[in-house]
């Protein structure tokens, strides 16, 4: 009874959020250059990495079109590897001058003490660093020997910071699944307070590599691991917002699944394209900052993101959880969009 009441209240909340569609979270894909050439890339597996970096002034002009904004608005600077650019600190200062907050998502390779200091001085308040295993498995996925040593240094610096809201993300795959307890111990020893785990969707390079995609049983094993660590309560461990996980929802996250892409999350991509999360299929692009007013596009575009009834097809057509899930994470709709690439709940049901 209590759970039903809570679920109804949550659905009403989600409808109100969708109607208001306040932009709270803006990705800026400032570069597609990277220090690594990973076996899998969460940004976009198809992109031409020779695209020139977006000039800071172009991004700031788009940002300045926002005449109103949510109180907790934040810019997430991403890439490629954002720290490959030397003007991230200038970007940060410009963002803070406008009363906004900012953070970065980094592979940690260029994150040394000097950079840590200069980023904090420029008002950086949030940071995510990707760690995909202990030495051997991290270096394997990152496709570069020695990359673990550098990310280890970055984690040490970030976890010691009194200023940063910092978390580590791990892309769980077949190689590092059995290593999760050891990674947990490693992070705990480094005094990391928050750890987010996600899986890899079968697009781009990941599609051809069976070691990257978890089987249904392995997926369940990962969720059980997360649930167990959450019960221990020593570190904030959670499953990312990548998909709806049915009965596991209350066990692996703080809040029910709610894909906010295009509802509260927008992005300005490397070529000026306006979209939601950077890993969403490019066919959903809503405009371009070089032709359109960013704020107007945010206010009046994004229809497929804000009315997801079109996702009620394929495996979603007859799903009893559709009203709660609404087609899973938006980044799961690729290609001809006849079916979500991954149904997380389905993976769990297929085991039984």
């Amino acid at each position: 009874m209590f759970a039903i009441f809570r679920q109804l209240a949550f659905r009403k909340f989600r409808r109100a959020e969708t109607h208001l569609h306040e932009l709270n979270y803006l990705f800026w894909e400032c570069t597609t250059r990277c220090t690594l050439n990973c076996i899998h890339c969460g940004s976009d597996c198809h992109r031409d990495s020779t695209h020139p970096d977006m000039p800071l002034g172009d991004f700031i002009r788009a940002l300045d079109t926002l005449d109103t904004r949510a109180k907790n608005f934040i810019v997430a600077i991403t890439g490629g590897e954002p720290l490959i650019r030397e003007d991230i600190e200038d970007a940060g200062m410009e963002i803070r001058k406008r009363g906004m907050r900012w953070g970065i998502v980094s592979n940690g390779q260029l994150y040394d003490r000097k950079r840590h200091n200069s980023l904090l001085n420029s008002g950086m308040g949030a940071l995510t660093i990707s760690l995909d295993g202990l030495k051997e498995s991290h270096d394997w996925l990152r496709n570069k020997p020695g990359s673990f040593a550098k990310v280890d240094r970055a984690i040490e610096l970030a976890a010691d910071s009194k200023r940063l809201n910092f978390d580590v993300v791990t892309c769980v795959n077949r190689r590092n699944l059995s290593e999760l307890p050891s990674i947990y111990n490693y992070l705990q020893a480094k005094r990391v307070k928050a750890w987010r785990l996600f899986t890899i969707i079968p697009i781009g390079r990941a599609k051809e590599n069976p070691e990257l995609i978890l089987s249904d049983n392995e997926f369940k094993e990962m969720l059980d691991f997360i649930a167990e660590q959450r019960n221990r309560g020593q570190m904030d461990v959670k499953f990312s917002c990548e998909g709806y996980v049915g009965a596991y929802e209350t066990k692996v996250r703080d809040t029910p699944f709610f894909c906010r892409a295009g509802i509260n999350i927008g992005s300005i991509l490397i070529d000026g394209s306006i979209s939601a999360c950077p890993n969403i299929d490019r066919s959903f692009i809503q405009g371009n900052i070089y032709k359109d007013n960013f704020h107007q596009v945010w206010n009046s575009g994004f229809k497929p993101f804000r009315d997801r009834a079109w996702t009620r097809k394929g495996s979603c057509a007859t799903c009893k959880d559709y009203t709660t899930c609404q087609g899973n994470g938006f980044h799961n709709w690729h290609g001809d969009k006849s079916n979500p690439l991954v149904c997380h709940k389905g993976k769990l049901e297929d085991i039984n």
Partner: protein
Amino acid sequence: MRRRKIRSIVGGLSFASALFIFQACYGMPQDMLDDVFIQGKVLSSTTNLPLYGIKVESDYEENYVITNSQGEFAFYTPWSDSLKLSIMDTDPESDGNYISKDTILINPGQEVFLNITLEEN
């Protein structure tokens, strides 16, 4: 306005206050910490000329800057109701040797501008 009220009420009823502080799948956490933007200039008390290479450090040791050729500095640091700044001459003595000093900011606002003078040793 009505929608905002509904959102707050039903957000609370679903017992998920954290709903308002979310994180995108591939993004970083949000930043809710109060901080202060401190900027200013360091001058010689004898010559009134700007001092280059002076370290200005907050209570949080990870936040420090070195003054530029105009003696200017600017940085963000976490807010505190009593924020200590240390101003130190850490570069070689060849360009003068100045006595370090501390200053305490009581209940600073979001932005603070400081003119600091250092005495020659």
